[in-house]
Structures are given as C-alpha cells and as structure tokens.
C-alpha cells in the first residue's frame, strides 16, 4: 500500500472505475482521511453534474431550419441542365460505338468454345455473388447507423 497521497487523477479514476482501480490506491483511500475526503467530494461532484438539467433551445429549431431549406428556388439551375446534356451526350456516344462494333462483338462470343464460355459465366456469377453480399453488409451497417442503433 502507498503511504504517499494519491493524485487527483487517480482519485477521479477510482470514482469512475473502481473495479479496474489498482489495489494499493483502494487500500490507501480506505485509511487516508485526506484522500477519502477528496474521493467523497469528487463522488458528490459527479453526482451533481449528472443531475443537472439538460439545456433546450427556446425556439422550434426543426421548423426554422426546414423553412430555410424549403425556400423556393428563384433562379433556373444551370448545373442540372448541364448534367442532363452530359448524360445525353454519353448515351449517344455509347449507342454510336455499339452500332459500329456490334458485328465484331457478336463474332467474339460465337467463336469461343462452349466450355470456355461456361467457365467465364461461372466465374462472373461467383464474383457478382460475393460483391452482392458485400453490398448488402454495407447496406445493413449504414441502416443501423441511420436508425441510431
């Protein structure tokens, strides 16, 4: 057992987590009047802090925020128009490419032996299944966070 007075940090730790506190600290507090008094004061202090009423806003915060979020837009959003234009250009490019290379693509699949084709399909299916499971796990994790679990 230690005869030297215990630091405030150790006394606080003793109050917060008695079970994992070192035995010599517990023994010292039992016999040292000064440290025991300090420990009792910290105990009361923590209890009083916990008893304090929680503050709350004196106004309706959701209402105020939602009012600002849902304000009607007065300007035409040029960024949305640009996004649609880009998407249209992208789709058009893919269609044109397919038109020119479709013949060669079909040839590539018909010239491969059936055994090799089955192998490609099986491997692709396995990879897709693993990816699907992973996506589902991620989804569950996100839903738990969103549901404040």
């Amino acid at each position, binding site marked *: 057992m230690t005869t030297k007075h215990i630091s*405030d*940090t150790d006394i*606080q730790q003793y109050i917060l987590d008695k079970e994992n506190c070192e035995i010599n600290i517990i023994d010292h507090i039992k016999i040292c*009047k*000064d440290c025991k*008094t*300090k420990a*009792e*004061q*910290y105990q*009361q*202090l*923590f209890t*009083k*802090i*916990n*008893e*304090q009423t*929680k*503050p*709350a*806003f*004196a*106004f309706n*915060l*959701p209402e*105020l*925020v*939602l009012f*600002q*979020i*849902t304000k009607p837009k007065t300007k035409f959003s040029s960024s949305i128009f640009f996004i649609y234009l880009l998407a249209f250009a992208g789709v058009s490019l893919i269609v044109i490419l397919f038109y020119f290379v479709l013949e060669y693509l079909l040839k590539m699949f018909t010239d491969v032996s059936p055994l090799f084709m089955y192998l490609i399909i099986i491997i692709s299916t396995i990879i897709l299944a693993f990816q699907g499971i992973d996506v589902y796990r991620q989804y569950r*994790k*996100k839903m738990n*966070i*969103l549901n*404040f679990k």
Partner: protein
Amino acid sequence: MKQVLDGDTSAFGTIIKKTEGLVAQIVFKMINNSEDRKDIAQDIYLKTFKKLSSFKFQSKLSTWIGQIAYNTCLNYLEKKKLIILPKTESEGEALSSETTNTSNNETENLIFQKDLSEILISEIDILPPLYKTLITLYHNEELSYEEIAQITELPEGTVKSYLFRARKSLRESLLRKYKKEEL
C-alpha cells in the same frame, strides 16, 4: 437520410429532432450569447444538410453532427477572438494548490454538503468553453472518450487529460468560492 438525399426535406426534421439535444449541449456550453446561439444552431443544421451526401458512415450520425456543431462554435469563438482554453494553466494551478494546502477536511466537506447544486452551475459557467463542453459530453450525454475525441477532433489521451484537469479545476474553484463567502 436516404429520404433527405432523395429530396424529401421534411425527413430532415426527424434528424434534427433526434440530434437536437446533443447540439444544444454543445452550443449552450460554448456560446454565452442567446441570440448568437439561435443563429449558430440554424447554421449547424444548414451545414449538415449541405454536407449530408458526404457523410462516410465512419461514425454515428449524431457524432458527425456533433462534430459539425463543435467546429461551428469553434469558428464563432475564433471570430470573436474568445479563448476556448487558456494556453498556460500554471496560474490557475498555483492558486488552486495554495487553496488545497490551506484547507482542512471539515471546511471542504461543508461546501459539498451545503448548496453545491447552486454554486456548481455558476462555477461550470466560469470554466473555459472546451472544459465545459467535455464535462457535459462525458457526464450528461454519457459519450465515450472515443466519441468525444471524434467530435472535438482531439486525441483520446488529450480528451482524458483535459477532463481530469477540468474536474480538478471545478472542485478547487468550488472550494475557493466557499472560502471567499466565508470571509
């Protein structure tokens, strides 16, 4: 959150209601002016709404919003040139150690039995904003050291150390207060 991202802004109200308590604790402890609190609280949720799509699911949604609240308050304090935590606490510690040495057990115990609740509220108010916030998040909101570290973006060890100092400082200021009243 998905509903909000899909354009259903009213669903954001549910998020506000669920996290308002934590945000209020942070704002009340860091900002003293009640008018500013109103603006800051709105600012916090407007920022949250804008940043919602960038939420990475690496922490609880409430912790992430708490982090936005803490940073918004921190920016406010910096703009107003208010100190969140004194750089050196040597002065405070010297004063407090003097008090501790001269006090006796009976006097010390009296204060904790008398009107602790009343004095405690005013003494917590005097603490630096960071200490107030840490005490509130740990004792009132019952957050773990890890969650507090995420909100304040401080290392976990620093959070623990600041909390110990804050409680020590609070206990000693309560004793000093009582001595002054006695004189």
